[in-house]
């Protein structure tokens, strides 16, 4: 069953997703995309009469991050007066999740504290093997070279390893817990589950504490050593080390000032928090070894209701690494472009999506007509932007490193745009086949970027050729797709012009810069785009308006999306900043209006986040709650871009432009 997380945490090797009540939904090791080892893992209390599963409806929860860290606090309150405080953190250096449970009760109680797990080690319920080493008090489950272990302080006093789904139901750990006593079976194979338990003796208002270590390793001996070493360290020491790790990493960020926002109902602080949270979230979606990012932690691995999100798309990641670069973390660009060099297809394009190690992922874009050409355009565009901020030797080396990749990608784009518009392919939403405004704009930006890189590399002939084609694409897109109503058509579908308004047409301005506010005609075109998208795609919810993808969108109920809404606010902020110098006064009213409306959209996006501040892909149009993929890296990157632009506006307004 599909369950979306409310919070994520991890380190370079481990990514953990959790529900709002501290139930583990996913445990990815050693990569963010593979393997996901957990089906279910959570605490449970036996009151002496019955089991209270901590993810039951009877518990109320408050969950948040410890400020500026990926350490999670979850507080659970049960109607019966039992309260559990959970502190979750992943050690910064080893793939071990540490869970401290503090159980309190208003009334005296005598029962059990259980920790139950249904692990699918190696992302499979098949051929697993589990054992409980009662001397080492380590419970482990393994498949091939994946080992997941559970250790605890104080040591657990009872345990069970049983069949998760078999006719011998009484060995099933879940049922075994019912009578408040575990059978202590020490090993089993197949589709298995496990539980460990402790006596829970509480005086009225008394408390018991249990610390559970859930570790991963590539061998049995490494698992033992890790757990043993870690268990010797005081929890306070691990907590401090973990906190310091995150705070130090955040210290590298570009510092925000946001002067002039002090009076906006705590907005300044909210934006500071959102900025930090987006950065910390993106850290967790990145594969440090390969440089790639998952779009979101996978939550639909069976592709039951969508095509899955636990893969790397060039389109999303190009925006993510640029946002990180703008935020003070250029190294993500460097690693990602190395990954791009490795993953480019022989024809010069990039595939729909990849596993993080660069293998091509499950796809419905295997042919020329079903590929997404915008991903190649986006990648080239991002490479050029990165190149422009480099200096000295680094600049030279980067160009040398990517040149052949750029050449092949640009020639691929040339091959597929001979008529001025791109050949038929799939759109960025991965739904329609045809010719699209967004895709043409991305190709324009890709070829312009490639042209600049060629110029820098002394290849002026190529530079001219690619630039000429880019300008041809721009003209053809405007000629064919710009409508009298004041916006671009979505594109050509089934050989007919589709006038549906689609928020992605904003791509013609942001991020691809095909239109520029410096040109008076294009300036008006951008303002018309903004106005029409607001008019036709707004959905009122959460005391504001979110922007849906396009008219008649039916994917997951046609909700408003964070990225489409933040595209709009980004376009507003960028427009304000892009106005020709000296002409801002002429547009004073427009500037004021766009800034103020942009802030409203930004606030709307913040209101759609989880209680922990993670930005989803969508916001439920009926409930206003975060919907579908959580967290979505692309949403986070747009939040960063928006905040940085607003920071610039604030500084400029304050006469303190840096």
């Amino acid at each position, binding site marked *: 069953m599909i369950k979306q997380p409310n919070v994520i945490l991890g380190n370079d090797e481990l990514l953990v997703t959790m529900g709002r009540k501290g139930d583990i939904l996913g445990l990815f090791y050693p990569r963010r995309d593979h393997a996901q080892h957990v089906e279910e893992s959570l605490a449970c209390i036996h009151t002496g009469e019955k089991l209270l599963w901590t993810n039951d409806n009877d518990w109320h929860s408050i969950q948040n991050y410890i400020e500026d860290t990926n350490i999670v606090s979850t507080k659970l309150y049960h109607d019966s007066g039992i309260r559990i405080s959970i502190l979750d953190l992943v050690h910064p250096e080893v793939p071990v999740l540490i869970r401290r449970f503090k159980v309190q009760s208003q009334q005296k109680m005598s029962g059990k504290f259980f920790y139950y797990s249904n692990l699918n080690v190696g992302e499979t*319920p*098949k051929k697993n093997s589990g054992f409980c080493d009662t001397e080492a008090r380590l419970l482990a489950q393994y498949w091939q070279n994946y080992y997941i272990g559970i250790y605890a302080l104080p040591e657990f006093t009872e345990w069970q390893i049983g*069949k998760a*789904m*078999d*006719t*011998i*139901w*009484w*060995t*099933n750990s879940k*049922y075994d817990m019912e009578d408040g006593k575990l*059978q202590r*079976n020490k090993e*089993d*194979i*197949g*589709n298995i589950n496990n539980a460990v338990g402790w006596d829970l003796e509480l005086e009225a208002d008394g408390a018991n504490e249990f610390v559970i270590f859930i570790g991963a390793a590539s061998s049995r001996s490494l698992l033992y050593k890790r757990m043993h070493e870690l268990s010797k360290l005081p929890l306070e020491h691990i907590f401090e080390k973990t906190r310091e790790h995150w705070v130090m990493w955040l210290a590298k960020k570009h510092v925000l000032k946001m002067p002039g926002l002090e009076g906006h109902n705590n907005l300044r602080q909210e934006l500071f928090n959102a900025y930090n949270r987006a950065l910390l979230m993106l850290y967790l979606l990145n594969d440090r070894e390969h440089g790639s990012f998952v779009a979101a932690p996978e939550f639909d691995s069976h592709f039951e209701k969508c095509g899955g999100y636990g893969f790397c798309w060039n389109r999303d990641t190009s925006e993510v690494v640029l946002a990180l670069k703008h935020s003070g973390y250029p190294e993500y660009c460097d690693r990602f472009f190395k990954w791009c060099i490795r993953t480019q297809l022989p024809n010069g394009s990039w595939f729909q999506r990849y596993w993080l190690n660069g293998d091509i992922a499950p796809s419905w874009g295997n042919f020329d007509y079903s590929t997404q050409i915008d991903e190649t355009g986006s990648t080239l565009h991002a490479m050029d932007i990165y190149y422009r901020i480099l200096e000295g030797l680094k600049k030279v080396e980067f160009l040398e490193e990517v040149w052949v990749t750029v050449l092949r990608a640009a020639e691929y784009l040339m091959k597929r745009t001979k008529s001025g518009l791109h050949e038929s392919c799939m759109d960025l939403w991965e739904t329609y086949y045809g010719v699209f405004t967004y895709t043409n704009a991305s190709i324009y930006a890709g070829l312009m970027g490639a042209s600049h890189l060629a110029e820098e590399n002394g290849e002026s002939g190529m530079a001219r050729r690619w630039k000429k084609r880019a300008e041809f694409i721009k003209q053809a897109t405007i000629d064919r797709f710009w409508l009298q109503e004041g916006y671009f058509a979505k594109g050509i579908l089934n050989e007919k012009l589709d006038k549906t308004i689609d928020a992605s047409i904003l791509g013609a301005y942001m991020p691809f810069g095909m239109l520029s506010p410096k040109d008076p005609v294009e300036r008006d075109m951008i303002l018309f785009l903004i106005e029409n998208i607001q008019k036709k795609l707004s959905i009122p919810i959460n005391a504001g308006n979110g922007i849906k993808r396009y008219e008649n969108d039916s994917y997951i109920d046609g909700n408003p999306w964070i990225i489409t809404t933040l595209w709009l606010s980004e376009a507003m902020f960028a427009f304000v900043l892009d106005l020709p110098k000296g002409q801002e006064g002429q547009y004073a009213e427009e500037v004021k209006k766009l800034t103020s409306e942009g802030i409203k959209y930004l606030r709307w996006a913040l209101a759609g986040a989880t209680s922990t501040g993670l930005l989803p892909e969508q916001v439920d149009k009926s409930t206003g709650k975060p919907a579908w993929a959580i967290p979505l890296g692309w949403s986070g990157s747009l939040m960063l871009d928006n905040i940085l632009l607003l920071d610039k506006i604030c500084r400029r307004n304050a006469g303190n432009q840096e």
Partner: protein
Amino acid sequence: MVRDLCMFAGLNENSKIVWFKITYSKDPGSLSPIIDFLEKQSVLIRIGHFDNMNMETGEYSVFTEIGNEVDLEELSRKIEELEAVLKVEYGISENRMIHGVDFPLNVIGVRAIIARAPTLVDIIRTLNENAPHAEGLLTLSGLKGGIHAAKYFKSIMPLDDNNFTSPLVELYKAVGWGILEIECDPVTFEGKIIVRDSFIADVYGESEQPVCAYMSGYFAGYLTEYSGKAIKVREISCKATGKNVCEHIISLASPSISPEHQPRGDTR
């Protein structure tokens, strides 16, 4: 228990199928005047049932066939005027095929539905054909149902070693799941359950393996909840495999047993 009726009636253009739900006070002899009155009004009673709502009042639900010329409003009012009658509700089955009085249905304390046996068997078959561990999954699903049934029976009547199997037999028959013969030693919990006309085996069609794992799980859940001990129930013979009846063996669960050490195939 079952507080609803359904019926099938042939086509008769001159009459209609009408249900009445009559709430009455349960004084001695209070029901007879109601039935007499209906008969005198030329109301053809097709089917009816009584429900003792509590010590003071009861409910008489009746399906009738009544001539088109009868004014139902008038008839209803006359019934309501009878001395013991507290309230009358009525409705017409427009299509003369199937109709219910109460909604929603309720069986052993929870919402119930009437489903065609193939509806459930299609689910079971789909699981068997597609889901890994289908037999285990069905056992666990049945287990929950059996545990609920035993809990419910314990809550409404005293269950003891002499009668603990009889509500289960009644329930299976009442809901159309099968006819049970249960032999179970209340001390050792050794025994067997014969299921005649199991709805699963009847509808499933031919199979090389027993197909009533859901029922095995149900029996295990029921007996486990009653006894407080883990009870194992295994179907060793199934009508779907060509036998006359289905047979489930009862025994105390042994923690040491592992399916890896259990013979698979013919007897499973």
